[in-house]
């Protein structure tokens, strides 16, 4: 074990997987000598010459080329400089990568990774949480790590998977979150929730940056003798329905929390599964905490208002428990 930041753990996974398998390579904008806008790929170009490829500003070409090379035996890791820009290449993912197994029976072992999420005054075009778009597309796997050890282990699993994987890094966690990370090769299986705090009164089902805000909320709620279980789903696709239901059946109350906007967000899917499969276990309606249905604004004051905060989680939790 070694203490690492979230971003170090991601870089570490890339390096280990590149060392382990010659077919793993990186392509994206400014990723080679420069090491990427956030320095995730720093040093890899020197260590693995020819396997870290700078591309023009062409998200369609990056993603399309990743697909083509994946069909031809490579395991590309495509970096989106900001996940927001994946929209420019959306068609490659939504129509080409996602249907190739279904139509051709061929795997497309590729990872699309990059910084997403808000809280950094990035404004409407550098803050988006777009995981639900991809979770709504059959044929893509969707990963949203919250902790350094998961960031490392889930990225390794993503690279080894034979299907296209969308890997959402939260940029606000890059250097703010540290944790113990297993050294050397480390994988974390997809489709298994992680109970990050045990509790008995309420289950908070969450992922990504909101795991950390939910943990802070749980601390505060504990002061009022409310015992909260925090469940990090880690992967949206595949989704560990049983893991979520297990927690809800134990606490009989659920609050679903994510940073992405509320309307038709992934939280709606989680709520639907809970009410469908664990209705009898519920002592209160399931609530959601998510961003307001607005673009993420630039001004710090407005951004804090639009994105869900610890206090929003606390209040919603109290409402569910007090129902």
């Amino acid at each position, binding site marked *: 074990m070694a203490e690492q930041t979230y971003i170090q753990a991601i870089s570490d996974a890339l390096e280990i997987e590149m060392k382990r398998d010659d077919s793993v390579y990186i392509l994206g904008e400014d990723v080679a000598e420069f090491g990427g806008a956030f320095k995730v790929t720093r040093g890899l170009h020197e260590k693995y010459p020819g396997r870290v490829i700078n591309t023009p500003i062409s998200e369609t070409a990056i993603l*399309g080329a990743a697909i083509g090379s994946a069909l031809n035996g490579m395991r590309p890791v495509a970096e989106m400089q900001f996940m927001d820009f994946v929209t420019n290449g959306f068609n490659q993912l939504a129509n080409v990568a996602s249907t190739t197994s279904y139509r051709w029976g061929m795997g497309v072992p590729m990872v699309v990774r990059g910084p997403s999420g808000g809280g950094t005054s990035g404004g409407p075009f550098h803050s988006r949480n777009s995981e639900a778009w991809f979770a709504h597309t059959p044929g893509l796997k969707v990963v949203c790590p919250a902790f350094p050890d998961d960031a490392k282990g889930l990225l390794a699993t993503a690279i080894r998977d034979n299907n296209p994987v969308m890997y959402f890094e939260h940029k606000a966690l890059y250097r703010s979150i540290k944790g113990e990370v297993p050294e050397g090769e480390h994988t974390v299986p997809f489709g298994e929730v992680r109970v990050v705090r045990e509790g008995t009164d309420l289950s908070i089902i969450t992922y990504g940056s909101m795991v950390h805000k939910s943990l802070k909320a749980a601390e505060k709620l504990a002061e009022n003798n409310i015992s909260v279980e925090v469940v990090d789903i880690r992967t949206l696709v595949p989704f560990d329905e049983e893991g979520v239901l297990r927690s809800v059946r134990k606490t009989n109350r659920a609050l679903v929390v994510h940073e992405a906007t509320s309307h038709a967000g992934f939280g709606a899917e989680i709520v639907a599964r809970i009410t469908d499969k664990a209705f009898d276990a519920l002592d209160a309606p399931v609530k959601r905490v998510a961003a307001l249905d607005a673009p993420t604004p630039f001004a710090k004051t407005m951004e804090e208002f639009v994105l869900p905060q610890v206090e929003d989680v606390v209040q919603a939790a109290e409402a569910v428990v007090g129902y």
Partner: protein
Amino acid sequence: MTLPFEFSETIQRSDILRDEQRKELLVHMLKAREFDAAMGRMYRQGRALGGVYSQLGNEATAVGSAYALEANDPLFPMHRDIGAHFVRGCDIDTLMRNHLARVGSQMRGTDGTGHYGDHSKKIYGNVSHLGAMIPVAAGYVLADKMRGTKSVAMNYIGDGGAQVGDFHEAMNLASVQKLPLVLIIENNQYAYSTPTDEQFACDKLSDRAIGYGIEGVTIDGTDVELVFDTCRQAVERARAGHGPTIIEALSMRMRGHAEHDDASYVPKDMLEYWQQRDPVDRYAAWLIDNGILTADEIDGIRKVIKEEMNECIDTVVELPMPDPEEGGKGVFVAS
């Protein structure tokens, strides 16, 4: 009707092709034509499934280009490139099962027309979204370049599809990386109902090559030997590490966009002009004039193909479609 190009009246004889190969080219072109005719008949009889996109007029472009590849070179064909599939050794039965979504079809009934992929033949069909496969083709050969193998990808796009943004991103990336990619623009004068002057404002689509710093050429797409020679040169340049080429092949879409479309928007004189340049008739006449095949031999070949086609159709139409439950399977491959 103005054409941006001076055509030669006669076939531009290739210095590379042997007469045996010339016969092969004709056979592939005839197969494409007969397959197409059969699909058209089935459509009118209500026995086809979905849209039927005729390749009539595209025989020389599809066949001549694919014939310039080696077996190991990946092919990324479009909806009117059935001739290229025959060049790659696809049989009528396989293609017919795909087109009619019968059990045993390569895509399990999940998708139709020429959209299938077949690793064994290095064929990677298109998705409907025009232009989307150009970057995929670029990535495919990027992988080979990284491993030091020397494959060349051939990708096809229409005069309409060439206006999709993917075209630019892919050709630019391929040019920067000097990828072995040959892009055939099949300029058949129409994209659905839209004529080329509403599609682009340059004289020749191959002029775009200048903007990418690569080679580009516009040729008569109804002359199979000229298409072959031009593609062969581009393939060799690509294999030698000199990067991509854009080849604009001019021809005419001789039927509607698909069989439901009577193409009444196409001027009659335009069709008459191109009818004079029918790729199959031209080549057959030239082969006869040059003593390579006799008219009787050609009739014989055509007859055999027709019989095979009809027999195959009779068998395939009797086959069931796949089990309904197949529709929920195969979304992911094993991790």
